[in-house]
């Protein structure tokens, strides 16, 4: 049996990749994908714990997270399309109308 720590390390690596991508990428879609990556890293740790402790609640949480992620993806993509239509760019550094 694969030890719990393996899953957790993988989950941490995924999350860290997500954070890094979120911070350094400029393309808004890439950033969006990085967020998904972070969510899935967390999901992995949820199911790992659920399997380890034989508790179903962790898996239920994963479903919740997937639902929220789906909803977020729908709304987020709609916003991205709207932004692209008005600004004709996907570079977040140029979407700065609210900036001081």
């Amino acid at each position, binding site marked *: 049996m694969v030890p719990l720590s393996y899953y957790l390390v993988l989950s941490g690596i995924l999350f860290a990749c997500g954070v890094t991508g979120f*911070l350094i990428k400029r393309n808004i879609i890439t950033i969006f994908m990085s967020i998904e990556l972070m969510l899935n890293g967390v999901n992995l740790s949820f199911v790992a714990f659920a399997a380890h402790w034989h508790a179903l609640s962790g898996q239920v949480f994963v479903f919740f997270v997937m639902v929220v992620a789906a909803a977020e993806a729908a709304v987020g993509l709609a916003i991205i399309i709207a932004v692209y239509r008005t600004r004709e760019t996907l570079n977040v550094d140029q*979407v700065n109308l609210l900036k*001081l």
Partner: protein
Amino acid sequence: MTPNLHLWLIPLLPLAGAAINGLFGKRFSRQTVSAVALSFCGAAFAWALFVAIRFSSLAVPHMERLAPWIRAGQFSADFAFYLDQLSLVMLLVVTGVGFLIHIYSVGYMWEDAGFYRFFSYLNLFMFFMLTLILANNYLLMFVGWEGVGLASYLLIGFWFVKDSAASAGKKAFIVNRIGDFGFLIGLFLLIKHFGTLTFNQLFSAIAKLSPETAGAGLLTSIALLLMVGAAGKSAQIPLYVWLPDAMEGPTPVSALIHAATMVTAGVYMVARSHVIFERAPSALTVVAIIGVLTALFAATIGVAQTDIKKVLAYSTISQLGYMFLACGVAAFSAGIFHLMTHAFFKGLLFLAAGSVIHAVGGEQDMRRMGGLRHYIPWTFWTMTIATLAIAGIPPFAGFFSKDEILWRAYQASWIYWLIGLFTAFLTSFYMFRLLFLTFFGQYRGELQASAHTAGHNPHDASAHGHGGIHESPKVMLVPLVILAVLSVVGGWVGVPGSLGGSNRFDQFLGPVFHNTTPALNSEHASAGETAPPEQQTEGPEPQTGHGTELAFTGMSVAAAALGLLLAWWLYLRNPELPDRIAASLGGFYHAVVNKYYVDELYAVLFVKPLVDGSTRILWHGVDQGMIDKAVNDSADAARELSDSVRHMQSGNLRSYAGWVAAGAACVIAYMIWVGVR
């Protein structure tokens, strides 16, 4: 069961008049304004008369409580009124003379744009003055005391667009503050040591104390502090300087506030506090000395003034000095007697002077008057009566009161008497000088220059577009005549024993001043005291003294007559002589004309250091340097701090994300650190 006289009506009626005229007067016609002011003031007078009629059936002192006011621990002060012979006299004088002056003002102020404002203030003054008189504790008295100061300020600065009037109002207010400061501290001492300010409680507590014959104790300090307050309000040395400037106000105001009523509040207060003063002989001596010096000092200044109102102002100060002299020799009833007669004749003098000023179109300089008796006979005759009264010519009112004071002063010390007598001579001189310059000789003004030879007038009077010299309207003359009658008969209530009278005024006021008198008269003892030792130590002077007293009366009359003759000789017979005398006196004359440079002295000693200190230290140093600077500096510091922090909020989404990530990293690091530990 004492009847309820509703004394509260007397002060509150004028207040109602002041409120109505003050709030709605702008929309009223002049007729309505004067009707409101006169009816409320007249109602107060009528009620005072009613009280006077019922007075004999009252248990004196009569006290009425209107409402509770302050309750703090053991201390309490109520809206309550105190009526005894002293307050009754004051009440009648203030409401009576006040009402007459209200009538006069209708004529005098008719043309003024601030007509309603004037009457509102005048009624307000009446309210505060009557509060002062009727109060049954020092605190309520102090309310009235401050209130009349306020009304005085408002009325002196009535023509506030005139710079001199505005600053005269401020001067009066500020100088009075100094006196009030002393008064207040005196009250604090009273509260601290006796726990009450209510007259009857306080006086019965103090009456048990023995006089402080040696050194200065508590009562002496209290008495002196009260005297500081009285000196401020009643324009005594060294706080008299505001009164001459107060002549900037309209003339009826000078008559009402600065001659007949408000300035006598100090005398009233001292007389009311006689229980304290009688137990502080050294304070009484101070009062007498201040009084006699003020009388002399102001009279000498009055001799050289050329402004008709300024002469009267200094004369007022001088006469107030007489009243304080009377109080200082423990002859309180003589002081109040003079207060009453003075209210009549000085009120009349001011009103007549107002009538003169009115007649010659606003001119106040006596050098540009003269010969007016042909044009304004009513004013002339009433003013003559008032002048005779103030000069002390029998049988006019001033003679009896002034003679009484001089006689009582002599019993205390011949020095007081001598200075008082000399002052009486000066009074007579400058008053007849005023009369002769104004009404006799030839007209020296420019109003009807074509009809008169005004050639020798070296000054160019600005021509007033006012028609010719004319007598005042009836509404102004009637009060003059009434006051003239009072100036004649007013003194007859106090004809002394030596002249065949019984000094009923003194006997009437007797219960106020004699009940609690300690055996003090060893100080001011007159030879051959026949009265019983306890109760009547201050009773009428013994029969054996009548010859002496008559001699002294003769000397007062002689002094007055001498003043008259000198004035006649200098200003009618040899009109060029005064200038020559003035020239030969040189420096002294200049000092007198310039009021001994007291204003300048005060300016150098007090005003300038205060203004400089306030400007440099308090304004530039403390206010701008510390308070403003602290506020500005903390604002600057906040702005600079936030300016540096502000850049974190860049609007760049990824930098926010970075902050979130960094924060999360910190939290994780902390938790790991906690876990490891």
